[in-house]
């Protein structure tokens, strides 16, 4: 069901229940967000995607996060105001203690004019630059590998292999978490034949045509098991798959 709402004075139509952040961004508004990904459930951790909402029939404006705010009819939304900028700036300043050099944060800092570092940087984090957004955990969970978890409370919250293990037992080495991580802080090291991530080293599967690594053997096996396909279907890298297709198309036998 589509609903009408107003974002920064502009009427917008969106699907009821959609994330207000996605809707605002579609409408061309610039709302900073570090812990959001359309494909996984929101946890609203970074507290940067703040907006102001007035619900129909209410006479007060609520300052709230937008990523986990489901759109409904008649909302009046403001994505930028002095109040929003003030609190976004402070939360950004807090995140900068954890990842002072992460490009994504540096860029936001410039954009929001956060130039001071009034708080001592975090030096005891086991995973430097991690902002504890749990995107890695949520992506891994959405893929049904469940190799990562968030543990601990408060300042001691951590992400990584569950139960404080050093190696992620259920990890298949797909690297999706690395893709998802906003601060690019997850160490993943590939050699010609191996990949090391989350305390484990995996053998890489190489393309039967060109010899380039495709993914880990464990990942290929997991995908094949999930899709009920023989491992073979993943024997070619994307480039060679495309080449093979065009060669076939060009072949006179067709």
């Amino acid at each position, binding site marked *: 069901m589509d609903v009408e709402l107003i974002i920064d004075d502009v009427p917008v139509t969106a699907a009821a229940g959609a994330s207000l952040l996605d809707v605002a961004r579609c409408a061309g508004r610039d709302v900073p967000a570090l812990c959001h990904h359309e494909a996984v459930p929101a946890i609203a951790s970074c507290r940067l995607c703040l907006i102001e909402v007035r619900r129909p029939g209410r006479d007060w404006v609520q300052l709230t996060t937008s990523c986990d705010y489901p759109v409904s009819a008649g909302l009046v939304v403001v994505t930028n105001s002095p109040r929003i900028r003030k609190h976004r700036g402070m939360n950004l300043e807090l995140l900068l203690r954890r990842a002072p050099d992460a490009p994504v944060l540096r860029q936001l800092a410039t954009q929001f004019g956060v130039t001071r570092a009034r708080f001592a940087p975090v030096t005891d984090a086991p995973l430097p630059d991690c902002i504890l957004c749990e995107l890695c955990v949520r992506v891994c969970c959405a893929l049904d590998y469940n190799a990562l978890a968030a543990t601990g*409370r408060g300042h001691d919250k951590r992400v990584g292999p569950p139960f404080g293990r050093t190696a992620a037992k259920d990890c298949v080495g797909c690297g999706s978490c690395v893709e998802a991580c906003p601060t690019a802080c997850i160490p993943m090291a590939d050699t010609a034949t191996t990949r090391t991530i989350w305390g484990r080293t995996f053998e890489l599967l190489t393309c039967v045509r060109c010899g380039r690594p495709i993914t880990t053997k464990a990942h290929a096996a997991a995908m094949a098991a999930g899709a009920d396909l023989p491992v073979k279907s993943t024997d070619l890298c994307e480039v060679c798959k495309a080449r093979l297709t065009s060669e076939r198309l060009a072949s006179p036998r067709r």
Partner: protein
Amino acid sequence: MSGVFSDPGALSRHRDVLVATEDTRHKVVAVCGGTGCRAQGAMKVFDALCTEIDAHGADRTVGMRATGCHGFCERGPLVKVLPEGILYEHVQVADVVEIVEKTLLGGEVLERLLCEDPVTGQRYRREEDIPFYSHQRRIVLRDTGQLDPTSIDDYIAAGGYSALVRALEMGPTAVLEEVKRSGLRGRGGAGFPAGRKWEACRSAAGELRYVVCNADEGDPGAFMDRSILEGNPHSVLEGMTIGAFAMGAREGYVYVRQEYPLAVEHLDLAIEQSRALGLLGDAILGSDLSFDVRVSRGGGAFVCGEASAMMASLEGRRGVPHRRLIHLSEHGLWGRPTNVNNVESWANVPLILLNGAEWFRAIGTEGSPGTKIFSLVGMVNNTGLVEVPMGMTLRQIIFDVGEGIPDGKAFKAVQTGGPSGGCLSADKLDVPVDFDTLVAEGSMMGSGGMIVMDEETCMVDVAKYFLRFLASESCGNCTSCRDGLSILHDLLGDITEGRGTRETIALVEELADTVEATSLCALGTSAVNPVLSTLRYFREEYLAHVDDKRCPAGVCKALISFSILAERCNGCTLCAVRCPQDAVVGEKKQPHTITQELCIKCGICKDVCNRDAVLVQ
């Protein structure tokens, strides 16, 4: 026992038999079997009393009961003799023979065991004469010190489950209306009107729905919910059953914290007994109401008491709060309509049904009817669990029930509402204690913690203490709460350790504002109360720390120094001998001095000095 009660009449006939048997006993000895008294040896006293009574062949005329908490744990083990209501404090096994021979058989009161007034030294004969009790209005706790919580018969004999019978007669709609009219507000913290929540749950779409009892009670020092569950578990079960009837729920959960083994034991037993008598299960009392309760044990994190985190934990997920735009009453446990109430809220329900909404409204204030149980602790003469009508002033609670501040010290502040409550100053003593007034004054009711502080308390240090707790209990989800609180704690550390400036205070205020405005759950949004309220009421004390590098209360070690007043010191050497640093020097019988470079400010010299010669500045 008589098998399943097939209708209300069977229950009431059973009650008549129980009451008739009771009447043949001339006396009942109620030994407090609450966690506090147990820790002081109450069960040994209980066993010894049983043996002694048997030995005198008096077991037919004297009944014995291990009851729930009497609330006055600091005086434990407590022994009460009924019907006279004589209350003995600090009873030891050695006192047992005398109690049996003189009091029980001889009718003589043992003066030396009677409760002593901490201020006047007077000894009170009966419980209702003791100021600690006489200023209370115990309705929820009325029976916790009288009944044996492991016996459903005790509860039934005292009228238990007649509120349920009443509810079944009234029908669900009328029950809901009664609870709404009573104005009962949730006792777990936020004070949300229970009737409104029930109504939302009842009218939410769906076949299955749940009622949940929140017994997570994570506030350090709070034990009201524990005492109710330990001392009168059936009152909670009866309340939940009535709620289930009104809302159309068939299943209930009690979420109890792991650290409450006795509460779980008594609750499990109560559920078992209720099932055996058909007070839980299918066709309760022959009606078409079917309802059962399961107990779930929480992992102990403070944040798991937050309703959405508790749902996650009950479903077997990590106990982390999440956004609730759709109310739990519509979308709760496993996505089904769910009504969560606190232990004390549930325990009020049978009272309301039995006595009527008007009776309930006549207690307390217009906006906050009924009573509230507080855990009164800290620098106050009488500590313990107290139940008072809403609207009683802080002064009445602290100075009448609590009988004031020990050792003639001056009252400085009271913190209400648990760790994230606010601290109120002496000029707020006449504020009535109810949900709305406390919030307006920058504190809150919370679940009923009340910590009294005297003049020797540093308010910056107090704020730091609570922030430390809250920062470590933040679930870690939100940037603002997780990192904001730990930085606030560090900034307060800067102030107490002499590194603070006026800018530090400004930064504390700026950061606290963001933590309050942008955190997801009430742990984060209320965690700044201790800082903001102390800044509001005790600002000069903060300024003394940053401007003059002075701690007026003499608490912050970095800002104080110990010295000896030569005119008072007689050179007794007591402090010199005890000083772990050998920092006190001086000849015998000559005034001593403290070598500042060696002093670690442990305060031992001040504690041991008989002549009050050690000065803290």
